């Protein structure tokens, strides 16, 4: 199973298994990783599941959709080139994501 590494704002890291079909957001939330609020439960409506993808050229990630793009303009922490909504991310390879300072 691919692994997801979450880097928290304080630098601590948590590594979890990525189950097929389960989003990076859902994996974090169901394992109690702090820092992903995911208020809308994964409907791309709230922009509180923002992450920075640290892996360079990650394979098998879906492209940013129009809706995600718009939502990324609404994140509480700065949007960067590697910003994604973790509720829209499913992974097939190992990946590292960094959590922003704040989601609200």
């Amino acid at each position: 199973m691919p692994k997801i590494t979450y880097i928290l704002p304080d630098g601590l890291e948590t590594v979890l298994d990525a189950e097929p079909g389960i989003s990076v957001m859902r994996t974090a939330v169901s394992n109690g990783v702090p820092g992903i609020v995911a208020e809308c439960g994964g409907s791309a409506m709230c922009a509180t599941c923002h992450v920075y993808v640290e892996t360079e050229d990650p394979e098998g990630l879906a492209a940013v959709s129009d809706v995600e793009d718009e939502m990324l303009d609404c994140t509480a922490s700065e949007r960067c080139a590697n910003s994604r909504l973790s509720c829209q991310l499913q992974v097939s390879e190992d990946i590292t994501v960094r959590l922003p300072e704040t989601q609200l």
Partner: protein
Amino acid sequence: MTIQSTAQEVPVLELDPFSDEFLNDPYEAHEQMREAGPVFWLERYQLYGVARHTEVSQVLADHETYVSSRGVGISDFAKEKPWRPPSLLLEADPPHHTKARHVVSHIMTPKVLRGLKEGFQERADELVERVAAGKGTVDGVADLAEAYPLEVFPDFIGLPKDGRENLLPYGTMVFNTFGPRNSHFERAMERGAKAQAWIMEQCQPGAPAPDGLGAKIHAAAAEAGYNEEDQAKLLRSFLSAGVDTTVHGIGNALQCLAENPEQFGYLREDPSLARAAFEETVRYSSPVQTFFRTTNKDAELSGIRIPEGSKVLMFLAAANRDPRQWENPARFDISRKAAGHVGFGFGVHACLGQMLARLEGECFLTALVRHVEKLEPAGEPVQQLNNTLRGLDSLPLRLTAA
């Protein structure tokens, strides 16, 4: 009793989810449905039901199999003509739905809503402070739960001051018509008929105030190539879905807090829990209880085959109390992580107004704990029975001003 129409036997239930008894207190019946199986057959209405969190979520997520364009009420638009022209949002499928949704989501972003917060908070503070300073006993529904959304929402859309009393009867009618033609349906149609003309007038391009959301929707829809009739229909979605829902959300929150004084105490100690308290209300006492889908092809769900053209009733509120998903689901607990409930739906049709609803709920409950020290029941609440919604007609409360 079971029928042998499918791969696995479908449990058959005789209960009527639109009877007064059920609508008054659905929770035991919810449990019966969850325990009957992952999918069950409702004999009375000849349709399938799902009440567990997993299956409700799966139906919501699979919009290609379980479509909305054949109606999200009990009637199948492929067989019966809808009573009003279908919504371009709620009663549509991709790709038409995707286009219409983008017109609106583009305007009501979380960023735009954040900009509204200060104003919404001020109005909530004014209202609650005034009501709390008055006589000690109030009606939580008329004086607070209806008063607040009816003040901020029509202003936000840009509706005139006159005629706003039509908003609630219209919304009540729309939500009742998703159910069967029972007495709630018929009575709501009678009362709503008058409101309908006013609503349609307000939805016309040019009618709403130029600086409100309504005018913005019209402009964005025009730019996307929608004609005037469709521009009006897009705004109609907001006037149908945006008022009764938040009124019931706030009313139910007041009831939950009055009946659980320790939770009200936690909220007073830490008002930053206001948003979480509203979220927990939408889980625990879901304003929108049910929606339907229609299978557009033969389907199989958790081992049960569902033929094409079947109506499937999703019990959102039962999923929100499924013990497979939640610890102590029948406990109102504002400290729990309620995210992941399906009270706002999920997937492509997830509630477009959910961030606005949260904003209203948060501002209202923040004001409540600022201005009210003690909140106590002062009589029996009266449930308002509706084929889709759960909310109150009245909620006698005793308030002690802070």
